[in-house]
């Protein structure tokens, strides 16, 4: 999130789209309600009428997978009716920038497409620069090649009629949402977007979110209280695990993973974002300091200037390698891996096309499964259709402590790192994850110290001294993450102190300041609220530098005065020459004097309405899901996103517009369960409340298929099938899509064969192996299925 949970209450219009906040983030609803109590408008857009919809002032439906069409229509509405925040758009975004003359868009394809590679050459999407290397602008926004005019042209095609045909949303409903949301385009109003996996899990997932980010920029809603782009993340520390880079493409704090073409630090640093504009802070120019400080925290004294701080010990990706989830399991299925860690996860149920994943696991020599409860991944070898005698995989199932049985911090969606304490001992011989990995590494290191082995340097030279009296000490890691001044041995106060000469360390520059000489900031419990906005700067700690609302320099005018005097995030005090309020995005004076542009993490200093960095285009464009109910994309000749990777063969099948699978299907969650259910299916209260897999469908579809409420039904796709209990409900309705009736069904993905015994299987046996081209997040929210009643067994 750019903002945080309590900040919802500062909003005037809240759009919840691609999420069911009341069901999946119930306590967040406290702050939606607080906004409503102040008179704010709450809008819910979803294929289903849900618990969230019951509280909405405006609820409208759309077909799964058509969000860009819906939001593209909103962009057109904002532009056609001059509802954008002109000051903001001109000063704080790249709307006035001039785009390369060879940029173009025709019939669903941007310029530079190579159909053989299914990829774009992005050269023609570049922004033009003048002879000094500074972006060219037309501040009148009239130049036909400026971003603003290209935006207008691109979205002129998203007429209400066209959007209705694609989404199935009636024209009046569209207009209601467009009108309400675009009312936040004035400085005294703020609109926020709360989204979740309903937006991300699509082959256009990144562009779904980008479309909304563009709307937020047009309306001046970024950096302000009650605004922002806010992902309601699904797991308690998914933010922290991202920040600490349990991912293939980044190393801690969003530094790119070293790749083969960058053999040395010097090569790596050549890719440091650069700007020649003296008005751009370009914060990423500090990246070399963060890299060297990270290497010092990895290898300690063994990282020296002479050995490039151990940079060569870091593993490197091939130049364009994508090692993300779907590719990982594709390779596992083909037998690439002998070993596999499944640590605090359950891919046998959580992965798209879970049937393929379960088969892939049979190809392994060994698997380490660390969890609080038994799960379908650790016990895959005895699952449905498996013959243990034929499965060679050794499995180690290691019991770990639950959250209340250990000490440490987790980071919520609002970037608040909160410390929690140990309340009890774990049961049996279970240990905290940290203790397990700490001891395991010592065993591995001993083997490499004793005998020969491949490239032992990174193992032997790793700094691994996080223990007190022979036991793993989580505080020592928390301090390592914060970082040290290695000359004085003191903890650094913030990332401002980090250097690229090896005299400082920091395991994660964004967390510098989280555990300083003043103490453990994440453990703070002060309730002061000096701004009155609910920022609570003395409660826990928030990255970066305890800044609660990111990009807050965009909330003020060129002189540092708040554009909305009623909700002051920061304000320049001319007398003391200091900012007051939230921690500003850099302490420089206001932009109108000698300060910098507000979006300091962007090389140009302004936000990107035109985004030349994504693989599938600088402007979001509607494409149909890989599996969809209509043969032709009504926007262009490109039915699906032209750069998605198609997995084919074996368990990777898909069928679109096939009469065998006529219904749009989606997956979701319920309040009483979490993810694959490993931490909820075993809890008696929760499993009693939601005991089994169900499939929701409309009364119209139930009539068509002669299904009654409570019947057992089979839901089937080209990949697999599950048995569920039918819930026939008016919460689901058929759509009218381009003149034809399209039915939609949906089911939760919390279940699995291991427990409870009659609870049903994972809905991910149905979902396809296909991902967004930028992130490879799977398309679990829109695919095609069939549903039919389970035939009653003949009486004997």
């Amino acid at each position, binding site marked *: 999130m750019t903002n945080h949970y309590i900040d919802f209450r500062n909003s005037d219009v809240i759009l919840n789209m691609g999420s069911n906040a009341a069901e999946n983030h119930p306590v967040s609803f406290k702050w939606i309600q607080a906004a409503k109590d102040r008179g704010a408008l709450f809008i819910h857009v979803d294929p289903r009428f849900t618990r969230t919809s019951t509280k909405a002032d405006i609820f409208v439906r759309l077909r799964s997978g058509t969000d860009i069409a819906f939001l593209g229509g909103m962009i057109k509405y904002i532009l056609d009716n001059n509802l954008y925040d002109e000051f903001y758009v001109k000063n704080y975004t790249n709307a006035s920038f001039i785009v390369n003359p060879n940029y173009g868009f025709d019939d669903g394809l941007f310029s530079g497409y190579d159909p053989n590679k299914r990829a774009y050459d992005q050269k023609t999407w570049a922004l033009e620069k003048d002879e000094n290397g500074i972006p060219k602008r037309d501040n009148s926004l009239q130049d036909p090649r400026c971003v603003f005019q290209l935006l207008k042209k691109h979205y002129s095609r998203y007429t209400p009629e066209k959007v209705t045909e694609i989404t199935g949303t009636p024209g009046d409903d569209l207009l209601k949402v467009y009108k309400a949301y675009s009312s936040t385009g004035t400085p005294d109003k703020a609109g926020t977007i709360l989204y979740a996996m309903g937006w991300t899990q699509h082959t256009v997932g990144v562009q779904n979110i980008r479309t909304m980010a563009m709307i937020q920029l047009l309306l001046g809603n970024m950096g302000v209280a009650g605004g922002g782009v806010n992902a309601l993340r699904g*797991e308690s520390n998914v933010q922290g695990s991202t920040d600490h880079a349990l991912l293939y493409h980044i190393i801690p704090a969003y530094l790119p993973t070293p790749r083969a073409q960058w053999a040395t630090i010097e090569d790596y640093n050549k890719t440091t974002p650069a700007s020649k504009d003296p008005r751009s802070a370009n914060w990423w120019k500090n990246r070399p300091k963060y890299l060297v400080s990270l290497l010092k925290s990895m290898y300690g004294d063994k990282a020296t200037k002479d050995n490039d701080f151990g940079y060569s010990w870091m*593993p490197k990706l091939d130049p364009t390698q994508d090692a993300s989830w779907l590719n990982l399991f594709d390779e596992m299925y083909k037998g690439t891996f*002998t070993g596999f860690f499944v640590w605090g996860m359950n891919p046998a149920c959580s992965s798209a096309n879970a049937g393929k994943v379960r088969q892939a696991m049979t190809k392994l020599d060994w698997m380490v499964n660390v969890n609080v409860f038994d799960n379908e991944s650790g016990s895959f070898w005895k699952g449905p259709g498996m013959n*243990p005698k034929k499965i060679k995989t050794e499995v180690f199932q290691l019991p770990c402590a639950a959250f209340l049985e250990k000490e440490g911090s987790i980071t919520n969606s609002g970037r608040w790192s909160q410390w929690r304490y140990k309340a009890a001992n774990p*049961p049996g011989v279970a240990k905290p994850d940290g203790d397990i990995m700490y001891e395991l590494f010592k065993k591995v290191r001993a083997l490499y110290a004793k005998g020969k082995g491949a490239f032992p340097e990174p193992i032997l030279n790793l700094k691994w001294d996080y223990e007190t009296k022979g036991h793993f000490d989580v505080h020592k890691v928390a301090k*390592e*993450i914060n970082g040290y001044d290695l000359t004085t041995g003191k903890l650094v106060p913030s990332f401002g102190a980090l250097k690229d000469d090896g005299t400082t360390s920091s395991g994660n520059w964004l967390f510098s300041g989280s555990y300083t000489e003043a103490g453990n900031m994440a453990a703070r419990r002060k309730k002061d609220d000096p701004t009155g906005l609910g920022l609570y700067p003395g409660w826990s700690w928030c990255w970066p530098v305890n800044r609660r609302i990111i990009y807050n320099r965009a909330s003020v005018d060129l002189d540092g005065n708040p554009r909305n005097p009623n909700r002051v995030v920061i304000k320049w005090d001319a007398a003391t020459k200091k900012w007051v309020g939230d921690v500003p995005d850099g302490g420089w004076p206001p932009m109108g004097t000698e300060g910098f542009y507000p979006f300091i993490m962007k090389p140009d200093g302004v936000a990107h309405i035109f985004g030349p960095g994504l693989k599938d285009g600088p402007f979001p464009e509607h494409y149909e899901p890989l599996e969809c109910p209509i043969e032709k994309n009504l926007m262009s000749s490109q039915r699906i996103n032209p750069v998605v990777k198609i997995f084919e063969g074996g368990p990777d099948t898909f069928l679109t517009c096939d009469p065998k699978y006529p219904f749009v299907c989606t997956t979701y969650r319920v309040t009483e369960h979490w993810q694959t259910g490993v931490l909820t299916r075993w809890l008696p209260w929760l499993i009693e409340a939601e005991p089994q897999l169900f499939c929701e469908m409309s009364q119209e579809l139930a009539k068509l298929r002669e299904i009654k409420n409570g019947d057992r039904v089979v839901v089937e796709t080209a990949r697999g099938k599950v048995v569920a209990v039918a819930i026939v409900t008016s919460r689901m309705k058929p759509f009218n899509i381009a003149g034809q009736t399209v039915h939609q069904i949906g089911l939760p993905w919390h279940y699995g064969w291991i427990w409870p015994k009659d609870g049903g299987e994972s809905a991910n046996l149905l979902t396809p192996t296909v991902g967004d081209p930028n992130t490879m997040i799977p398309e679990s929210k829109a695919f095609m299925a069939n549903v039919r009643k389970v035939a009653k067994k003949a009486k004997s």
Partner: protein
Amino acid sequence: MKITRRTFLKVSGATAVGTVLSGLGFDLSPAEVYAQTLRIKGAKETTSICCYCSVGCGIIVHTDAKGKVINAEGDPDHPISEGALCAKGGSSYQIAINPNRLQKVRYRAPNSGGWKEVSWEWALNKIAANIKKSRDASFTEKNAAGQVVNRTNGIASVGSAAMDNEECWLFQKFLRSLGIGSGRVVRTRCNDQSLYRF
């Protein structure tokens, strides 16, 4: 006045407790609140944060004199949740007292039909040996183009957003030291891009 356990404790010394009369003609809520306090009387309070979604609600865990978890409830001082918890957070103490918890280290041998209980020492030694064997067999110093990659191609890893920050950081350090880090670390299917990132 809305009576919670805390406010009840604060005002119960006074007689001026606001009363909302029930159908019985007398107010049950102070008695109900008092009854709740008996269950956790003398218990130790430990603050925690919920393990489920990303809202980050405050939880107070109660343990008895023997250190057993007897209750978990919303932390009224927490500025986001203000004492509220959803069905999951409110049930979370059942994780601690659950007979189905994994309590032993288990090993499944190749082609075997069941688990065997083993010691930590045995399991960690065998896993370490497996890691070394897989790593040594698949370690790649240079790729096909002759560029240095120093990467282990034969081990994959997934997980986890359910670990603490310190554990996440330590885990990436562990994996990257083995050469797995850049090749194969992946988190969860559902969050690969919903992150807020720089």
